[in-house]
């Protein structure tokens, strides 16, 4: 659906993205991650034909974004960062205008606008001025706008930024539902959201792709794949030293909580050392009140990948 080849964008003085190449297949939900200033918005703006790349090519639904920009744009629903909207229009009026502008046939406009209002939960505010809407509703108007012409592809630039947890959940469910019929490329900072919704993830840093895989594979590959947490009464023994002797433990940090001690073990990739830790505790007759495995999250992957460069 999206095919990007060697895309480069240079601004005066610095390079925003370097030699980006990736593909997004039909029906995929692709998460686009990276620290602020990594080039996410730049890439999305190029894909939406808002600005041309310095070099490289990209196609959307088979149409070149530069040579056949109009057709490419017709197949695309784009929601820009911060959702710019005309504050002096009413919700229905704005969506009617956008639908007509995007070439929805005249007799189908009210049907389509009704559908997207229903889908995005805008029925209650349809007669309100956009300028009077809360951030959450503005976001939904932006999403409804992106959907109104039934595009094959949705590009959403931080669709959940600035929303409260309930709204984030609603938008996430909405995106997951949309993923059944649409191809989606979305950027976000909220990593658990990506883990829950995306079928593949691209991590970009300083204009280059650092990783591109399914969330599961990314978690698998990461070196510090989580760890084990033990809370025990170890008496006068040095618990941390004993725990470090277990093969597979990389390091241990201990915190004291009254007579209890909490040990956080970082372990080698893929290892589950809970059994060994339990054996040790049983041998030493430590009283144990917690023994859990902490799974690595996408956050760990993100931090590791984007920090490796800085070090």
């Amino acid at each position, binding site marked *: 659906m999206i095919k990007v080849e060697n895309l480069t964008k240079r601004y005066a003085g610095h390079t925003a993205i370097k030699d980006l190449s990736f593909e997004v297949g039909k029906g995929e939900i692709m998460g686009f991650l990276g620290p602020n200033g990594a080039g996410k918005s730049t890439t999305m*703006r190029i894909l939406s*034909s*808002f*600005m041309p790349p310095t070099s490289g090519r990209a196609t959307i639904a088979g149409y070149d974004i530069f040579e056949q920009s*109009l057709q490419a744009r*017709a197949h695309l629903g*784009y929601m820009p960062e911060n959702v*710019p909207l005309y504050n002096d229009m009413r919700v229905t009026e704005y969506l009617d205008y*956008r639908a007509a502008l995007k070439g929805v046939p005249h007799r189908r406009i009210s049907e389509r606008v009704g559908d997207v209002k229903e889908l995005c939960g805008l029925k209650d505010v349809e007669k309100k001025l956009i300028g009077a809407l809360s951030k959450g509703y503005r976001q939904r108007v932006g999403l409804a706008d992106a959907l109104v012409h039934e595009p094959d592809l949705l590009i959403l630039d931080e669709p959940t930024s600035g929303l409260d947890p309930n709204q984030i959940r609603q938008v996430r469910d909405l995106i997951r539902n949309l993923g059944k019929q649409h191809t989606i490329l979305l950027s976000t900072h909220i990593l658990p959201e990506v883990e829950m919704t995306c079928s593949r993830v691209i991590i970009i840093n300083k204009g280059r792709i650092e990783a591109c895989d399914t969330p599961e594979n990314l978690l698998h590959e990461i070196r510090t794949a989580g760890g084990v947490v033990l809370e025990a009464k170890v008496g006068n023994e040095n618990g941390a030293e004993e725990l470090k002797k277990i093969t597979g433990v990389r390091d241990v940090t201990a915190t004291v909580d009254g007579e209890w001690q909490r040990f956080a073990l970082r372990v080698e990739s893929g290892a589950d050392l809970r059994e060994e830790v339990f054996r040790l505790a049983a041998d030493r007759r430590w009283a144990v009140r917690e023994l859990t495995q902490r799974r690595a999250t996408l956050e760990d992957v993100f931090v590791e990948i984007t920090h490796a460069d800085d070090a």
Partner: protein
Amino acid sequence: MRKFFVLLTREVRSYFYSPVAYIVLVFFLFVCGVQFYTQLSFMNGQAVSYSVQEAFFNSVFFWFAFVLIFPLITMRLFAEEFKLGTIESLMTAPVRDWQVVLAKFFGALVFYVVLWIPTLLYFAIFQVITKQPAASSAGAYLGSYLMMLLLGMFYVSIGCLASVLTKNQIVAAIISFCVITVHFFSGLLSFIMREISSATRQLLGYFSAIEQMGTLSRGEIDTRPMVLYISMTIVMLVLTHQAFQSRKWRL
């Protein structure tokens, strides 16, 4: 073509969403009303050799207000979209740059024409009350309104260009106000500068809106200003289109 009309409709309607439109309307009608009244009272006092309609379209007071309205109606055209960021949603929809430029130009022009419609009433009321014609002939009406339309087109296109150059509406308004004022008052140079050759005077006359108005409001339909203003408008719109496209490499 349909997209052009969709854009045009939004542009025209957007004028009436904002209080600026009503302020401009009220201001313009007030100035025109005062102008009409003072001219009539003057003509009441003494014999003159021109008609009511000629008097209305040829006084300095009126021109002053006229020059002021263009920055007000054109400053927001592009500058507001740049400022709000709505340019991003606008230009990622499948529309062409020239459709946007023309829609904004004609949107402002339609609003400008709407400003003028109530002034037709003045002459109608005058004729009803005094039972005398306000103008020497129908061609005089045609000539003066044609001149207003031509000059309006040119000044609106200057406003479009000023607005596309900046995201600050005030800056856009100042640029267009300066350019329009300079153009307009350059036509007065021949009145101020006494010691210029007749050739220079004639040359300045070609560009003088005041002289052209004098001719057209008598009902002499001169094609020279038509060619001048239509071609200048086209030049301004081409420049606007170029400047609008330049956002792509300036970003």
